[in-house]
């Protein structure tokens, strides 16, 4: 919740990342509760670091790496997840404390 106030319009949504880029999730508030809860089950939550693998050949869905495994979902959901790029992809798993 507190992220919504501090972030400005300049936010980057997940679907705008390039292949191989890493980013930290800063807000998932745009998602409806049902979808957000499904993502929680799958380990996709605020503070998590994701690597963008690729888009499908037709541009949708998108494919990411999160918590060391691979997950694909549609762009319409990725548009509602805001991220900040991080310069280098992590090798260790301790960084994601938010």
């Amino acid at each position, binding site marked *: 919740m507190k992220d919504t106030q501090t972030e400005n319009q300049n936010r980057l949504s997940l679907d705008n990342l390039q292949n191989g880029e890493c980013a930290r999730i800063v807000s998932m508030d745009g998602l409806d509760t049902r979808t957000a809860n*499904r993502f929680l089950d799958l*380990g996709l939550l605020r503070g998590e670091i994701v690597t963008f693998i690729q888009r499908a050949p*037709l541009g949708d869905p998108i494919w990411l790496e999160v918590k060391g*495994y691979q997950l694909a979902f549609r762009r319409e959901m990725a548009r509602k997840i805001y991220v900040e790029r991080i310069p280098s992809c992590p090798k260790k798993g301790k960084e994601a404390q938010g």
Partner: protein
Amino acid sequence: MKAEIALLGNPNCGKTTLFNELTGDNKTVGNWTGVTVTLEVGHFHYQGQAIDIVDLPGIYSLLTHSPEQITACEYLVNYHPDVLINIVDSTNLERNLYLTTQLVETGVPVVVALNMEDELRKEGLSLDAKALSDRLGVPCVKISATKRIGIDKLMQTVMHVVHKPELGRPSRFPDFYSAEIKQQIDETMSHIDHKDVPEHLNLRWVALQMLEEHWQGTTPAHLAGMGDDWELRIGEERYARIREIVPQVLKKSPFIRRNEMTKRIDAIVCHRIWAFPIFLMIMLLIFYISFGPFGSMINEWFGLFFDEWLPSATHSLLSVLQTGPVLESLLIDGIIAGVGGVLVFLPQLMLLFFFLSLLEYSGYMARAAFITDKLLARFGLSGMSFIPMVLGFGCSVPAVMACRVLDSRRERLLTMAIVPFMSCSARMPVYLLFAAAFFASRKWLVIGSLYLIGILAALLTALMLRPVLMKGDRPLFLMEMPPYRKPVWHCIWRTLWLRTWDFISRAGSIILIASVVVWFLNNFNLQLQLTADSSQSILSRLGMLLAPIFQPLGYGYWQIAVALLTGLMAKEAVVSTLSVLLAGGTAVDIALSTMLTPPAAYALLVFVLLYTPCVATLAALRRESGKWGFVARSFVYQMALAWFVSWIIYRIGLLFFS
């Protein structure tokens, strides 16, 4: 006394492999009151102890976000397994432990099976089971279900816990949460009436589930109006705790990168340009190998056996025994012609089944779903529907069952309504018979067009039913992309064998009975006397009643009406029935070519393609949808569509042929 063990874990964690390893083929399907779907139960003995093992569906958490998660929760609340085996994919530890942290709170004794630990070691990592066990407060055992390593150790541990349940429970409630959440748990607990909670459950877990609003749909009064982000906050704290635990139990990085091989394959098969050509090539190759020259060659050897060798051997044997013409007719014209007419296609079907399970096990099916999602989205489906649809080419029954991979009930119903139109392999014998009789030179064009009409019927049906079934809901495509795995041959062999055996046992039961019944009805008249003139038989009378329905479609013959009727038991029976009915000295295909015009033959094939696959599919639809109404509507729709499309095609065909 029997011990009851339940298997629980994330999808793709190796749960089914372990289940099969433990039980062999000794399993039944059980109904559990209070649990909405049927569950598979395996039976086996370990050290003289009889054990029932319940295979719960693959889930990501105990919160009730999906039908599977509801099922698992219902089972845990209403039943009391002696031990819960939680299978964890060691290569995907962080996410898998999320479910584990919930399970250890429930109060049900837990043993954690750390599966695929050997794959972890290939990446240069090692997992400390003892350290993890200390942190979770329950026993953890490393296993490899596919390589059959550690399963004995796992069962020993499970037996210890059966005899001493406290070994499988943390000595105190896991300390995952902040002071604020703990205070909320205490507060919520004070509002719970103990009598409402089954004894085997931990009250603190019940309080947690309530906080997360998932305790049987009720919200405690004191939480009303307090916002609904408890679930998210509790989840975040669980994950935070897991992030602390993982580096302590995994030596070296917990980030398992997609391995190089998987990356390289994906760079090609999910390539912007090459993905679709490769996908089509794979599909065509599978059908070409199964039904092209190679498959046909094996098919001909089998055909020789059933059409010539076996009947003549039976004939010689029976003449020696002097059993008389009735028994000979029953055996040769009834059973061998009927059952043999179906078994002939076994080798080709085994090839098809083999390739489909190879696609499933290797991980390519997930990629296919990924690349086709956008196309299917136009029809209100998602890439996840792709898997049941492809399996539908094999057999409609497993295809209907595979609809479980879909996210919501509505999506499942929509996909279940369309998979019967995917041309299953049992329809192939009918196509091949008619193609040989009418379209020898354009055999592949005809069969290919039927597959296309089936796909089209499925997609257009989805488009039409979407507003009714989805009610504005859009499918949620959320799909795990597993790493490519080398095929584990004994797993593929088991799947192949189960599906093949299913086909053989149908030939030996439903088809056998159908053949005998058809033979009887065809050789006896209404006075139950043997008659040589089949137009006097009981069957012809029955067929004559039905034949007018098919008159406008160009095939209003009683033999065909009867064949289509028996085809409801299994589509292959259309062939076996025609074989029995037309086995009057000439070959079936020649007999057919004198009866029908090519447009009528093609219209008939379209009818065979679209009408209800078989009673087994209807039963599967009933089981998976839970509603007879859905089954009845599907049946009526399939019949009406088959008749209507067949009629249109016959009329169009007439324009070209007359």
